[in-house]
């Protein structure tokens, strides 16, 4: 093979970088490549959190039996690496519940993939910590935290002894110098421990900002339990609480002004206005999905019958051309300029109502509360009624424009 004729010196050397260009993963993913694939290794979890949308019991034998076996996961990883995915996110359920977790982790790393691990840390053993230290994931481990005391943690997770295991797991991450960040749900039980949690978070080397909180909890991903949905609904932040939390973020108004001037406006009848389909998610049973919550059976591609590449490049994109047909959606969501503030999407609609295009009332209320807080709409207005939204957004953006330094 003849390489293109090129002067070696000029091309491979730069005074700033030397001969080798060092990249941060985020920088790389922003440039090119597929970025990240999500693989949900199990829907089972050793916690039984009150607010969770995807936690089958740890010893659910039927679920375990249906899960992809190690060989199948490896084949997906192999195909993902070949397509060009740089990173795999192992999630669940609790991914470390799988007895073959270490094997799958190492397999992914040896393919040259970086690994993001979502875990509650309860099953971080000395052996697993040792593996993560010897073969670093390349990305920070993300640990979900459900309280800073035995009482709170065990009350949320509804598992006796869970807190002690979590602390042991975290201590192992610390002692093995494995970079991790912490995050948590905003739940009433945790309220009194928030300051303690955030103070602790500042001692974690990889934490460069306050922990992220989830607060608008999703309903059951498999639509498997109306009773659990009732429970989740009770713990959701109210629209007002959501706005209050958001407004506490530094430079909130300036950031929102910038965001709104770019991203809000009526979406029309196209159902998928989000990033769904840019990447791909695999559920615990080997189905490729445009995004992890989108489990509507018509939108899942069984990888036992096709390749990841085919799913990603042909089957899923074809699905994403879907249009809304619900009169309510067409009357409201399709015309609502608050779309960029609203988390309404086919996946959320599916989990709440079993259709792809039913407006999710809770999310609608949260978006409207935020818009009212930002001054984009009045108290009695709805986003789909506003015709001069461009003027309003421009006015808001101008009022909170970031000052040039």
């Amino acid at each position, binding site marked *: 093979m003849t390489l293109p004729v090129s002067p070696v010196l000029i091309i*491979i050397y730069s005074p700033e970088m030397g*001969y080798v260009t060092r990249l941060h993963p985020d920088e*790389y993913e922003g440039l090119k490549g597929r970025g990240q694939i999500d693989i949900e290794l199990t829907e089972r979890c050793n916690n039984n959190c009150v607010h969770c949308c995807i936690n089958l019991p740890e010893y659910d034998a039927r679920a375990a039996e249906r899960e992809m076996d190690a060989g199948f996961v490896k084949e997906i990883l192999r195909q993902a690496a070949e397509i060009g995915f740089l990173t795999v996110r192992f999630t669940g359920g609790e991914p470390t519940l799988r007895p073959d977790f270490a094997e799958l982790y190492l397999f992914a790393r040896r393919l040259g993939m970086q690994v993001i691990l979502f875990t509650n840390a309860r099953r971080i053993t000395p052996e697993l910590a040792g593996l993560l230290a010897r073969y670093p994931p390349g990305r920070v481990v993300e640990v979900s935290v459900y309280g800073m005391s035995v009482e709170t943690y065990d009350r949320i997770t509804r598992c006796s002894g869970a807190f002690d295991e979590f602390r042991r797991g975290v201590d192992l991450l610390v002692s093995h110098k494995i970079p991790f960040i912490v995050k948590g749900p905003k739940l009433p039980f945790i309220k009194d421990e928030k300051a303690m949690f955030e103070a602790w978070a500042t001692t974690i080397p990889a934490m460069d900002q306050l922990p992220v909180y989830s607060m608008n909890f999703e309903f059951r991903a498999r639509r498997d339990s109306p009773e659990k949905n009732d429970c989740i609904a009770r713990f959701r932040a109210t629209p007002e609480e959501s706005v209050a939390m958001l407004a506490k973020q530094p430079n909130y108004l300036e950031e929102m002004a910038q965001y709104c001037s770019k991203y809000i406006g009526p979406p029309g009848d196209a159902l998928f206005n989000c990033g769904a389909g840019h990447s791909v998610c695999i559920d615990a049973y080997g189905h490729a999905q445009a995004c992890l919550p989108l489990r509507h059976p018509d939108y899942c591609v069984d990888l036992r019958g096709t390749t990841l590449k085919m799913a990603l490049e042909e089957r899923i994109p074809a699905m994403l051309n879907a249009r809304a047909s619900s009169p309510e959606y067409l009357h409201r969501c399709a015309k609502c300029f608050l779309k960029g503030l609203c988390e309404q999407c086919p996946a959320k609609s599916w989990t709440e109502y079993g259709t792809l295009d039913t407006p999710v009332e809770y999310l609608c209320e949260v978006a409207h509360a935020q818009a009212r807080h930002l001054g984009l709409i009045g108290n009695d207005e709805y986003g789909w009624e506003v015709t001069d939204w461009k003027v309003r957004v421009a006015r808001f953006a101008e009022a909170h424009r970031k000052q040039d330094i």
Partner: protein
Amino acid sequence: MSVSLETIYVQSEDVVSRIIEDELIIVPLVSGIGESDDDLYTLNETGRAIWSRLDGAKSLNQIAEELLEEFETEAETVQKDLLGLVEELVNRKLVMVR
């Protein structure tokens, strides 16, 4: 560490090199490579031409000869760049002496 043209170097077993969208990405597998554990590295096309030859079979002198046959450039330039690149790769533990 000084690098010599007579020495044979080999890509470290502790890294994986991948071609993604026509770009060479070198992914460290173990800790202690590079400045931090989440570092990735890339080389441009000519860097790749050198990287692919660091196979534990050829000395840098032999690699320089091959490059001179394929690239329009001076021997002095090739040697300088080859030494510069390999020194940096060795310092980052991406390659090692066979």
